[in-house]
């Protein structure tokens, strides 16, 4: 019976109040697991515990019962026998009477009541017993917070799981609920309490009988809490928010329609409160009540509700002008404050529910009619008083809300108010075909009345929203009253709007906004409701277009008109209005033609903005716009190539940038543009091909750069088929150039020849452009794209690379990155596999005729060099060596990213560069250069930089956008292979210079590796890291690398696992950081260094106290830093180190 004694020990440990909580939890867990494994049955447990459960000492009894209850609570998913459950629940229900040991009884009841079917539930009769005991014995409000919460949860659970038991308990239970909830103040308890009331009222509306007394009583208790006022501060540890509580209360309010006589007056009373929160809560509650209480009950209060809602809307501090958000034309009128918005929501619900009644109220409302009667006094925006503006805005909101709710209400509102507006505006029924001229000569005489126009726009918008919304539902009887009214006046309305916009300088902003918005709304009515004649639509579009073409000096109206056009385009695209699309296309054409129209004086940037924005509103428009843009690009480029005459240089650059940055990303997300893009590139190549002699000046380099960037971007978006064609074309152009000497017909077999780079290559600007474009093409293509003559291309790039043409090196890197390889059996369309390409790159013999030592061509010659030899300085030309190393770096990058093993060879070559006999042995070549310059530009430095090229992410090539072959985690892998090698070399290095170069190489690798990978090696790396930081801090060459190294250091400092190491090195770390604090070239470095120092200040006192003086000196200098954020950081840091003395 070892188990039993074990059990007794656990029970004793739990019951003993002097044990620590963790011990008690442990013993609880032990007992539970015994039960779960069936090593112990509940019966035995109860028998063992017998004495504790009935002890006369209330403390022990309490703990005993609680233990049993907690055990049951954790067995909620273990099946138990019915008889066991029965005896347990009877026991716990009985114990509810024992107030001294109540906690356990509550937990136990709750645990059992919560049990679900299938694992053994409490029977109804037992639940009734619990409820009876609850009603008799519990005085909830006299208990402590947690017990109260348990009581409420028990009640909630009973209500949810045993509604029948509830019914039989009769009205008594309602009094119990009232008693329990009354005066409850704790948010957590209240949340449950509100739910209890909601459940009770919803499930048993009849239970409390028709006698209003008890319903009133319950509501009386609930009503006191409204609106929820929360005094707990945010920071306090309460997991119930005000919103949750207020929602729970709202659900309780609306649980039964019986509450209506009490709730609505209360809510109306609170609406008139001055507390904004109370208003919002009441409005939210009111709209919920509307839905739940039903039409009949709400009707009684209609008048009262309407007048409070109207007052709220009228008194909201919004005025129309504030809503004219110049950013979006859509925003007119509906950026209200929250209260008015809630009020309008309620109104909308009420109108939907009982439209006749509420529309009568609205239509006959005195205030609203007063506005309409006096509408003549609201002539111009600037002359209306603020108060009247608010009134007009309020009326607009109310009418719009009513009109938007249903079709019948829309009809009613239009019938009642629209004629008045039309009269005021002096509009008559026009035949749209008459006198429609965009010039607006036949415009309405005089200024349109602002108030009337504003209200018409609002009404129009409301019924547009209504029709657009229901057009999708499609169940819409044609020709509603409002449609007919609108149809007959649409032409004259449009005219009024146009005259509002186009009155030159005297127009106020408000007028322009109204006019443009009105036009946009008219143009976006669904054709099935308001068949706007094509001529009218064209008239509207032309009006907007003329604003764009002529009004470019006024930013606001120009922006608004463009925005309106774009919105119309989006609308047509979205709802497939084919008729309107035809008219719109005309506009797109016209905007497109602006670009090349010389007589148009609009600034070029504006033209580009207009054309690209309109194009982006739909695919069909883009198809129209893109050729226009491309045409403009061709014209500009051919002017440039042939005449050297560019017009304003900016234009072409702007054009290319707009094309690359705005249009291409959009095209990228939609389909069907492949052909367009493809033709664009081919045409540019054709252009270059045709023009043999460029008369371009050197200062137009940036146009060429922009062109190359655009082409590269376009190609990367093309499909493989188009890329194949493009590559063919590009190759054809390149191979016809004079510098290209590897046509297969001429040289065969090519391997025999070797590469002679002794001659000087004279490249014209055209040649350079062709070459750069060709390398861009190669950089941007898919791996599967077929290259025409791989070997010749490789040789071409090899030669150019050695001449210092970096794009060629990048293209070579891209090629080796994308080639298929024999080993992994990748299918490739190219006849050259990676292995062969590598062979060409590394084993081609290169001859170079230089002054120092002359090598004749031919592979038999001993003096022939390979790329490797060049890197190691076999030729005595230093520039050549540097070019070779840079090229090697890009090739290495390509291989590294795909995770190819050959990258090892490249690394070996670079490492050999480090161990050249004397890194500075070319000094004699450049006698006049002084020593320092020489060091910085030495070959070894380039070898170190090669690691930077290999590790850093390039925007130019070898990125995802340019379809690079990227192996996951390649940086981490490279880091973990290189770190030990470089570290060993650093230790062995004999000269200071060499050591610094090696440090630099390692630093480049570290700074580009993800932090997590480096942190693991913190111990070994810290010294190198600090050395590198100090080294970089001497000049401003590698600010960014330095910053990322510092971030790495701060990562190590804040990492728990490297804490010991940091403590050990505290001295040198602080030494380094105090120097970084005054690094003059980058603010972020200084700031981060100070942050690191703050992090260091929490290290063990004994270790850092000796360094305090040094830090404080450095930091007080930083207090006078030129940058503010550094100074602020310095104050924090200084404080942290000053307080070391006191702690």
């Amino acid at each position: 019976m070892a188990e039993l004694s074990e059990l007794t020990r656990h029970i004793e440990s739990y019951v003993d109040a002097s044990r620590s909580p963790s011990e008690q939890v442990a013993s609880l867990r032990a007992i539970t697991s015994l039960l779960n494994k069936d090593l112990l049955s509940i019966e035995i447990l109860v028998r063992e515990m017998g004495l504790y459960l009935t002890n006369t000492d209330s403390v022990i009894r309490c703990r005993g019962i609680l233990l049993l209850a907690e055990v049951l609570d954790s067995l909620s998913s273990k099946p138990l026998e019915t008889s066991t459950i029965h005896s347990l629940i009877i026991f716990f229900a009985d114990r509810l009477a024992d107030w001294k040991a109540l906690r356990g009884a509550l937990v136990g009841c709750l645990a059992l009541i919560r049990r679900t079917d299938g694992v053994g539930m409490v029977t109804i009769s037992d639940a009734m017993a619990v409820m009876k005991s609850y009603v008799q014995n519990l005085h909830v409000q006299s208990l402590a917070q947690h017990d109260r919460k348990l009581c409420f949860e028990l009640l909630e659970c009973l209500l949810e799981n045993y509604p029948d038991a509830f019914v039989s308990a009769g009205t008594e239970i309602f009094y119990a609920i009232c008693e329990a909830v009354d005066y409850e103040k704790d948010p957590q308890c209240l949340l449950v309490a509100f739910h209890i009331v909601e459940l009770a009222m919803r499930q048993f509306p009849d239970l409390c009988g028709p006698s209003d007394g008890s319903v009133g009583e319950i509501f009386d208790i609930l009503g006191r809490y409204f609106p929820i006022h929360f005094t707990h501060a945010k920071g306090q540890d309460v997991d119930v928010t005000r919103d949750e509580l207020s929602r729970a209360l709202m659900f309780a309010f609306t649980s039964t329609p019986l509450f209506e006589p009490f709730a609505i007056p209360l809510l109306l009373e609170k609406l008139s409160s001055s507390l904004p929160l109370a208003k919002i809560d009441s409005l939210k509650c009111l709209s919920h009540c509307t839905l739940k209480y039903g039409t009949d009950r709400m009707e009684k209060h209609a008048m009262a509700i309407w007048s409070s809602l109207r007052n709220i809307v009228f008194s909201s501090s919004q005025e129309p002008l504030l809503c004219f958000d110049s950013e979006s034309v859509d925003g007119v009128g509906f950026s209200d404050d929250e209260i008015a918005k809630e009020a309008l929501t309620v109104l909308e619900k009420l109108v939907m529910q009982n439209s006749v009644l509420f529309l009568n109220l609205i239509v006959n409302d005195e205030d609203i009619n007063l506005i309409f009667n006096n509408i003549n006094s609201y002539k111009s925006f600037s002359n209306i008083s603020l108060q009247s503006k608010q009134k007009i805005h309020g009326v607009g909101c109310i009418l719009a809300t009513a009109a938007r709710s249903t079709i019948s209400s829309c009809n009613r509102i239009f019938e009642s108010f629209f004629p008045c507006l039309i009269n005021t505006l002096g509009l008559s029924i026009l035949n749209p075909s008459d006198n429609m001229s965009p010039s607006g000569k036949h415009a309405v005489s005089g200024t349109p009345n602002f108030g009337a126009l504003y209200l018409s726009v609002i009404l129009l918008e409301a019924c547009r929203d209504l029709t657009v919304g229901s057009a999708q539902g499609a169940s819409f009887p044609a020709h509603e009253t409002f449609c007919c009214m609108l149809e007959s006046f649409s032409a004259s309305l449009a005219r009024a709007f146009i005259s509002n916009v186009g009155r030159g300088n005297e127009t106020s902003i408000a007028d322009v906004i109204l006019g443009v918005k009105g036009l946009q709304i008219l143009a976006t009515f669904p054709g099935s409701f308001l068949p706007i004649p094509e001529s009218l639509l064209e008239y509207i579009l032309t009006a907007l277009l003329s604003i764009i073409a002529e009004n470019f000096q006024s930013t606001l109206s120009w922006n608004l008109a463009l925005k309106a056009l774009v919105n119309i385009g989006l609308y047509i695209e979205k709802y497939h209005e084919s008729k309107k699309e035809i008219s719109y296309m005309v506009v797109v054409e016209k905007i497109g033609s602006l670009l090349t129209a010389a007589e148009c004086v609009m600034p070029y940037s504006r033209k580009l903005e207009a054309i690209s924005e309109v194009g982006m509103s739909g695919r069909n428009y883009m198809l129209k716009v893109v050729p226009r843009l491309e045409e403009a690009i061709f014209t500009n480029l051919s002017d440039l190539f042939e005449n050297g005459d560019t017009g304003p240089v900016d234009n072409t650059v702007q054009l290319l940038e707009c094309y690359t940055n705005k249009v291409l990303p959009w095209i990228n997300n939609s389909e069907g543009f492949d052909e367009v893009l493809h033709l664009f590139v081919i045409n540019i190549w054709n252009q270059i091909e045709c023009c043999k002699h460029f008369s371009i000046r050197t200062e137009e380099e940036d146009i060429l750069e922009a062109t190359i960037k655009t082409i590269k971007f376009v190609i990367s978006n093309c499909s493989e088929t188009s890329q194949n064609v493009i590559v063919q074309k590009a190759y054809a152009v390149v191979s016809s150039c004079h510098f290209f000497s590897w046509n297969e017909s001429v040289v065969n077999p090519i391997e025999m020849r070797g590469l002679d780079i002794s001659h000087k290559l004279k490249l014209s600007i055209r040649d350079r452009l062709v070459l750069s474009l060709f390398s861009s093409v190669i950089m941007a293509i898919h791996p599967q794209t077929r290259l025409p003559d791989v070997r010749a291309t490789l040789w071409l790039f090899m030669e150019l690379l050695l001449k210092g043409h970096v794009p060629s090196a990048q293209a070579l890197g891209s090629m080796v990155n994308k080639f298929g390889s024999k080993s992994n059996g990748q299918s490739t369309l190219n006849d050259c596999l990676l292995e062969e390409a590598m062979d060409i790159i590394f084993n081609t013999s290169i001859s170079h005729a230089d002054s120092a030592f002359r090598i004749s061509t031919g592979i038999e010659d001993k003096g022939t060099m390979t790329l490797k030899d060049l890197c190691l300085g076999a030729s005595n030309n230093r520039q050549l060596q540097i070019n070779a190393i840079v090229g090697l770096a890009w090739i290495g990058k390509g291989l590294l990213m795909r995770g190819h093993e050959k990258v090892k060879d490249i690394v070996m070559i670079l490492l050999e560069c480090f161990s050249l006999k004397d890194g500075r042995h070319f000094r004699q070549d450049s006698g006049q250069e002084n020593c320092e310059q020489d060091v910085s530009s030495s070959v070894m430095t380039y070898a170190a930089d090669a690691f930077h090229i290999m590790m850093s992410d390039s925007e130019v090539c070898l990125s995802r956008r340019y379809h690079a072959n990227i192996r996951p985690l390649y940086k981490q892998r490279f880091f973990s292979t290189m770190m030990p090698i470089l570290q060993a070399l650093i230790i062995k290095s004999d000269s200071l210079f060499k050591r610094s170069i090696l440090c630099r190489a390692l630093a480049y690798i570290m700074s580009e590796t993800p932090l997590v990978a480096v942190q693991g090696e913190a111990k070994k790396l810290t010294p190198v890291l600090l050395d590198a930081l100090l080294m970089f801090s001497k000049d401003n060459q590698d600010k960014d690398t330095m910053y990322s190294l510092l971030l790495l250091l701060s990562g190590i400092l804040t990492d728990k696992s490297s804490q010991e190491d940091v403590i050990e090195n505290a001295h040198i770390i602080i030494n380094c950081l105090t120097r970084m604090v005054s690094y003059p070239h980058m603010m972020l470095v200084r700031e981060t260094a100070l942050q690191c120092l703050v992090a260091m200040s929490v290290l063990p006192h004994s270790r850092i106290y000796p360094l305090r003086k040094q830090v404080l000196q450095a930091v007080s200098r930083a207090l006078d830093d030129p940058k503010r954020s550094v100074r602020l950081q310095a104050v924090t840091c200084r404080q942290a180190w000053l307080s070391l003395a006191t702690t």
Partner: protein
Amino acid sequence: MVSELINANPVVYEKKERRVRSTPSCVDEYAAEPIDQLEIFDHLRDIKDPEHPYSLEELKVITEDAIEVDDSNSYVRVTFTPTVEHCSMATIIGLCLRVKLMRSLPSRYKVDIRIAPGSHATEAAVNKQLNDKERVAAALENPNLVDMVDECLAPSNGFAG
């Protein structure tokens, strides 16, 4: 110390929104940003009143306008207004201001702390006391006073460093 609060029920004002300085995306790395009024105010605004849990800003003891800075001549003058005229805490507040600025400003600065004219009964005496180097030094030798000052300067919850 004081058994009774000197101003038991001070008027508490709303905190001003912290002005966010506009930082242009492309900043000149070498351009200097001189120390200005707002920067000094940011140092001082969160100092706690010695007898209330409110900050000096909330009690309007100091305002941004009451700070004069001349960065080129390394000079700052802070004028503060005690909540009541006979406030014996004025010297403590002044001392807090001085200590905070001593810790936050570069050593080249000369700091003047003054009581707003007419806002305190013994204005001249307090001003003299606050700007007397030796008396300030002596005060900071007193551990009780230093504790009190540190208490006031301790960062409040929201802005703990």
